[in-house]
């Protein structure tokens, strides 16, 4: 078993997993601050449709996944004006996407394996090219977050005052959806469309139980995401059970531990 660590695919998996975890942990902080869990699901499921469509068209599924996520993010950002309206907009886009995905699956059943890996992740199947792509996308996401950190934080937590201070709140919303689309495309590689929450929401949800300090919450969130991802890969390598199973289990445990652990006390 130990000899498995000599294989390149394990190294690739660890590298993609670490990059994804940092991205998901940081983006997840804003997902929870903005209450956008629904959008995470919506984007992931649109990504599934895009990937299925790409396979159908003879294009790499990664390309379809990424473009569908970005297009869906743009659509949601431009349609959604108010929060309540946005929920309806996301729901509509999501249902349409899943419907298409189901159609593709039924029409082209020979792609069932590919569909399975998009739905549940296939981190142990990534190659060197995937590592490079993940690193580029990851760097893009982190650079974008650094650039808009303060106004995005302001607009996410305190939109009324942010608007009064002249922050383009709508623009921040669209920018964040695009960042989120990239993060979703990254995380799908590890845990798949259906378990996306386990990397993009749970670690941030656990982190906010541990600290009220935004910078620390982001740090904890990325550490938890990295821990459960690497733990999941190790577990899968040793048992040949699916990575997603381990990641989602560890994620749940981390969340429970954070809930039961110390809450930020009132000073």
């Amino acid at each position, binding site marked *: 078993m130990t000899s498995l660590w000599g294989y390149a695919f394990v190294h690739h998996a660890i590298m993609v997993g670490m990059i994804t975890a940092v991205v998901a942990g940081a983006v997840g902080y804003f997902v929870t601050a903005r209450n956008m869990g629904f959008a995470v699901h919506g984007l992931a499921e649109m990504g599934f449709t895009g990937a299925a469509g790409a396979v159908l068209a003879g294009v790499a599924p990664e390309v379809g996944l990424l473009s569908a996520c970005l297009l869906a993010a743009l659509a949601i950002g431009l349609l959604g004006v108010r929060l309540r309206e946005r929920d309806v907009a996301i729901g509509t886009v999501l249902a349409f996407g899943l419907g298409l995905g189901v159609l593709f699956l039924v029409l082209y059943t020979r792609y069932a394996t590919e569909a399975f890996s998009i739905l549940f992740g296939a981190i142990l199947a990534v190659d060197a090219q995937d590592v490079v792509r993940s690193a580029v996308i990851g760097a893009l996401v982190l650079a974008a977050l650094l650039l808009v950190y*303060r106004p995005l934080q302001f607009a996410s937590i305190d939109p*009324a005052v942010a608007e009064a201070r002249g922050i383009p709140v709508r623009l921040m919303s669209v920018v964040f959806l695009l960042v989120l689309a990239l993060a979703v495309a990254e995380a799908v590689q590890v845990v798949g469309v259906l378990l996306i929450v386990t990397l993009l929401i749970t670690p941030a949800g656990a982190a*906010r139980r541990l600290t009220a300090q935004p910078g620390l919450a982001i740090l904890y969130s990325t550490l938890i995401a990295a821990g459960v991802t690497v733990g999941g890969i190790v577990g899968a390598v040793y048992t040949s059970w699916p990575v997603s199973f381990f990641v989602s289990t560890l994620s749940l445990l981390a969340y429970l531990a954070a809930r039961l652990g110390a809450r930020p*006390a009132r000073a």
Partner: protein
Amino acid sequence: MNQTPDSIAADRQIGAGALHAARDAATHPHQPGAAVQLEDASLAIAGRRIWTDLSLTIARGEFLVVIGPNGAGKTSLLRVLLGLVPLVRGRALVHGEVPRRGHPAIGYIPQQRAFDPEIPLRGRDLVGMGLDGHRWGISVRPAAHRARVDRILDLVGARGYADAPIGRLSGGEQQRLRIAQALIGDPSLLLCDEPLLSLDLHSQAVVVELIARWSRERDATVIFVTHDINPVLRLAHRILLLTGARWGVDTPDRMLTTETLSSLYGVPVDVVRHRDRVAVLGVDVGGHDPVPHAEHGS
């Protein structure tokens, strides 16, 4: 604070919508000392007329209280001054300039809304946003930032709970932090949109005193939108009443009379004074939430 500057006392105006349109902009040259000027300003949102031909000069250091029923455009007036909503006609000036987004001299205090108890944010983070939350990137001078936040926290007496999760603070504590957030930018114009809503009486008094003290010490102008005039009655230099069809502005003593309010509202209104409190009976004086008519007397 009951003493009214002469320039303000002389500026008694009653407007009546389109009937008032004969005003000539030339009669309202920009006044150098004015904090805010509105000249025949008309606002419509989605085709609906909100207020029409509003003309008003607010002096530096003036405390103007804005009342009126729901939908009469009180919040919209603040949004015009913040540069978020354009006028359909007329002119608005803030310190002699056309309103623009993110004007550094403006501090904005919203109504208290409870934060998510789990939101990973401390009071000092909220206050810090008021200082540099609109800038790109991340803070590059954390020590200087922290010192400035601490100073303003001391000023509003919120230092003791500034490191606690903001969602676990009381409404009054959160609103003190909101005031620190607005004051940290050193504003000379404070726009307050129902900052007392859903606060208990003690917290209301604290919030009003913090705003009044800033106004007094910095000669800062305050525009204070409220549905309950009593907490700010002794501070108000003038009251602006927006009723949709009409508007009027005058000193509290002259505005809060049965005759004046009845003519502005267009329906019979009773103004009852009891000790230092005023009750307006017969109309909705305003507020974002449904306000029982009798509330102003309670």
